[in-house]
């Protein structure tokens, strides 16, 4: 197995951050568990065995703290607990709970330890374990991101359910006098040998007096009753009846509504403004200054937005190039030794490799997240406490930031996390939280709901970073012999964490993610270098982060080399792979797409691409027809290996949806800057895919990977290059820049 050679050459992202903070703890101490936060305000007769399970005389409540942006983790967390607790999802209440360090994410760090996620060697595991320990003590952060919620909860929540079950059995034994060994559990009850069912709720009082069981062996997944089979998501009926409260739907007494206008040149100053007309408009209560702009307070969201549009501003300059062409120029000039972020992968010698050369330059634009629910937050500040109602992916940071703005102690600042109408990474950001807090802090005692207009949401999206790639491939005797990939872009992590007041020394691994860790172990010569610039627009994590642009660059270059070599795109990828789990994924997509079947015929073509991100290998095949009205997508096939499937129905939905996301944005989305402002202000200019463009998408899941993985992001990266490769097969036209509709029409 080819691997990067030394740790010193790896991008050691969080490691260096933690060490820079002067923190280093051994693994042993770091494993000390946190106190169960539910015990703080527990009523008499209510039992809570651990942070995730509460039982009282009325109901069983499961705490599912990972943020739900639509990926279904709310339901999946409940299912993992319920699987071991022996209770059905229609018998429980599920709650996001309240933020607490007991709910820290123990898996997010895995991707940042400097080892490719297919590397499960003792060294890699030791470093991950050490970093996990450091993070747990130094920065026990709740966070939902990086497709890490399933790896974080997979064992932890089943364990929580099992411990609760065993404690309830102890309670039943105490009540009935029957030894624990003779007790069974099913559907929310302990069953005595004579068949008597003691419901968990009836046992709450006794269970509350028992020291909770802390160590239980988990069941073998082959004995699962609930997990592993298609489930009904617990949020589904509400989502189909308009009865689910998203953050934007929150209502409380005496609430007022706010809309904001902040300098659309991101990070620029507000020189002056004239709100005299706005203040006279119906329903307007006040106009307040906030950082970089103003907020209009009104008795209705629409009136607030209308009034905000009536304010005249003199905005300061943008702290980045005003025109888009200059952003690309900056990147063109970033491929230098001084700007080298990392020589992330070196196998063989790409310079000495023999073969005919193929070269390409690739561009991936800024793209907005634009979740359909515009960013919003409702905040009530009083002198004693603060309540926040919004959907956010980094819960405790929300509380600490609002504490900082209001001066209220963080322990009295409470985030009530809400369901999100999408995020795709935007709800990792804090500007909207800060703005809502600045407003509410000026209106103490009055709850304020701040809602971004869609235009404000686009103007302040912190888009996906732009990336430029340069590649040289070589082929000889019908085989690809060498790939030399250079990637220039921004550090998403530095931009994002800079806004959180944190600095990240050292190279950023996201800048070459998806390229440096491509498991093409049978490719004798491979080099991946990344180059960093910070002189561009502020950017943020966008679904799949670095792997999005980088898999496009890598897999397009590879496809060019394969075609030049005269090889079959799928066969040659399988030959180069050498990573068994990934080989099976490629073979699977070949099988379900009938890759070796009949010739597609005139004006048609199929393309394949492979992407490895967040530990999940995914292969995608796209078939297109070149019609007289443009490219028509005929069909898509996706195969992926997530190690263990929790809910095959939801996994398929994510596989299809992530593919739609990747394809739609590759076809028609980009954010461009002019006069320092994003030129795209609404979905007409940044559309994504609509139903009439969406072909049938066949999905297959495999379970050969040794570790369970999350699937929110991994379907995205290979979709764009698979489409580009299919277009080449159908037309002979090689498209090296997204969005593709700049170069070819689509039906």
């Amino acid at each position, binding site marked *: 197995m080819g691997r990067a050679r030394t740790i010193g050459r790896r991008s050691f992202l969080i490691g260096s951050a933690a060490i820079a903070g002067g923190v280093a703890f051994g693994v042993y101490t770091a494993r000390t568990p946190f106190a169960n936060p539910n015990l703080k305000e527990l009523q008499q007769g209510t039992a809570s065995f651990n942070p995730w399970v509460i039982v009282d005389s009325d109901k069983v409540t499961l705490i599912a703290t990972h943020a739900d*942006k*639509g*990926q*279904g983790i709310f339901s999946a967390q409940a299912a993992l607990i319920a699987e071991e607790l022996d209770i059905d999802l229609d018998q429980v209440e599920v709650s996001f709970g309240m933020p607490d360090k007991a709910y820290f994410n123990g898996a997010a760090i895995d991707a940042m330890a400097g080892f490719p996620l297919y590397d499960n060697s003792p060294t890699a595991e030791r470093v991950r374990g050490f970093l996990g320990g450091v993070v747990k003590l130094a920065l026990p952060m709740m966070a939902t991101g990086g497709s890490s919620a399933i790896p974080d909860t997979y064992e932890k929540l089943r364990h929580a359910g099992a411990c609760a079950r065993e404690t309830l059995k102890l309670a039943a034994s105490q009540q009935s006098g029957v030894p624990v060994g003779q007790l069974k559990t099913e559907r929310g009850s302990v069953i005595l040998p004579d068949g008597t069912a003691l419901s968990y709720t009836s046992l709450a009082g006794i269970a509350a007096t028992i020291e909770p069981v802390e160590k239980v062996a988990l069941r073998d997944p082959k004995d699962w009753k609930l997990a592993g089979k*298609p489930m*009904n*998501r617990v949020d*589904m*009926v*509400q*989502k*189909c*009846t*308009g*009865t*689910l*409260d*998203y953050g*934007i739907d929150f*209502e409380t007494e005496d609430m007022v*509504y706010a809309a904001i206008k902040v300098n659309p040149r991101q990070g620029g100053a507000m020189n002056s403004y004239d709100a005299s007309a706005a203040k006279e408009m119906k329903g307007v209560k006040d106009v307040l200054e906030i950082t970089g702009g103003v907020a209009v307070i009104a008795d*209705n*969201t*629409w*009136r607030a*937005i209308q009034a905000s549009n009536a304010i005249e501003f003199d905005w300061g300059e943008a702290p980045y190039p005003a025109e888009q062409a200059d952003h690309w120029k900056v990147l063109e000039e970033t491929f230098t030794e001084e700007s080298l972020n990392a020589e992330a992968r070196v196998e063989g010698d790409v310079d000495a490799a023999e073969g005919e050369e193929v070269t390409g330059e690739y561009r991936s634009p800024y793209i907005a997240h634009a*979740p*359909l*629910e*515009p960013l919003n937050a409702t905040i009530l500040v009083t002198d004693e406490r603060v309540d926040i109602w919004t959907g956010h992916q980094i819960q405790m940071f929300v509380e600490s930031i609002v504490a900082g703005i209001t001066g209220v102690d963080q322990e009295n600042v409470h985030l009530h996390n809400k*369901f*999100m*109408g*999408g995020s*795709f990474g935007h709800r990792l950001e804090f500007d909207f939280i800060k703005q809502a807090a600045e407003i509410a802090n000026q209106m103490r005692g009055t709850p304020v709901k701040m*809602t971004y*207009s*869609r*235009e404000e949401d686009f103007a302040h999206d912190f888009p996906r970073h732009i990336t430029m790639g340069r590649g040289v491939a070589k082929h000889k005797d019908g085989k690809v012999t060498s790939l030399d990939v250079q990637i220039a872009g921004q550090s998403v992590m530095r931009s994002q964490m800079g806004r959180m007041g944190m600095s990240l020394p050292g190279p950023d691994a996201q800048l070459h993610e998806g390229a440096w860790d491509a498991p093409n172990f049978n490719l004798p010569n491979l080099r991946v270098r990344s180059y960093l610039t910070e002189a561009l627009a502020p950017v943020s994590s966008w679904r799949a982060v670095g792997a999005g642009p980088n898999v496009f660059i890598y897999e397009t270059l590879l496809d060019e080399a394969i075609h030049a070599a005269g090889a079959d795109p799928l066969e040659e990828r399988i030959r180069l792979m050498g990573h068994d789990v990934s080989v099976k994924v490629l073979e699977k997509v070949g099988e379900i797409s009938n890759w070796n079947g009949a010739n597609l015929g005139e004006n048609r073509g199929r393309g394949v691409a492979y992407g490895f991100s967040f530990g999940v290998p995914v292969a995608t095949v796209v078939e297109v027809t070149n019609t007289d009205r443009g490219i028509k997508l005929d069909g898509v096939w996706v195969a992926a290996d997530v190690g263990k499937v929790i809910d095959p129905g*939801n996994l398929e*939905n*994510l596989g*299809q*949806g*992530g593919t*739609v*996301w990747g394809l*739609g944005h590759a076809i028609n989305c980009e954010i461009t800057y002019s006069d320092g402002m994003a030129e795209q202000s*609404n*979905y*007409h200019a940044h*559309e*994504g*895919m*609509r*139903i*009439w463009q*969406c072909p*049938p*998408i066949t999905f297959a899941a495999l379970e050969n990977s040794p570790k369970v993985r999350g699937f929110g992001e991994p379907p995205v990266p290979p979709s764009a290059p698979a489409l580009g490769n299919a277009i080449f097969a159908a037309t002979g036209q090689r498209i090296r820049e997204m969005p593709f509709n700049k170069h070819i029409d689509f039906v």
Partner: protein
Amino acid sequence: MKLSVNGKDREVDVEPDMPLLWVLRDELGLTGTKYGCGVAQCGACTVHMDGLAVRSCQLAVGDVTGDITTIEGLGTPDSLHAVQDAWVEHQVAQCGYCQSGQIMSAAQLLDFNDSPTDADIDAAMGGNLCRCGTYPRIRAAIKSAAQKIQEA
């Protein structure tokens, strides 16, 4: 100003140019109808006026000439409309934010056409954006609902 919403007469004190969307959400507390774009690009705000699907963000309340039905009036968790039932059966939603609008558009389509082709579905649903990409399931759920309506 008087409105008929989900079979009930409602009185609202608003200017006539306020979009129906905001009257429903902020004045009447019917938050199942969603704000997504404000310019009839996403369809999240779709409601029915006299049985026809309209984008409530572009319909001034002063121009409302018929009975309004919102997602809350179409069916309830205890009594699902055939389209909602199909949506649950196919587990369509991811984030779910667009689904009120999707369901209202689909319900109108099936009111007029109980055996829609793929092209009919494309035409009726093209104005409803789903950022999560649940289109394959939306299509399947509409076909399921159509079949149930035909059998009923």
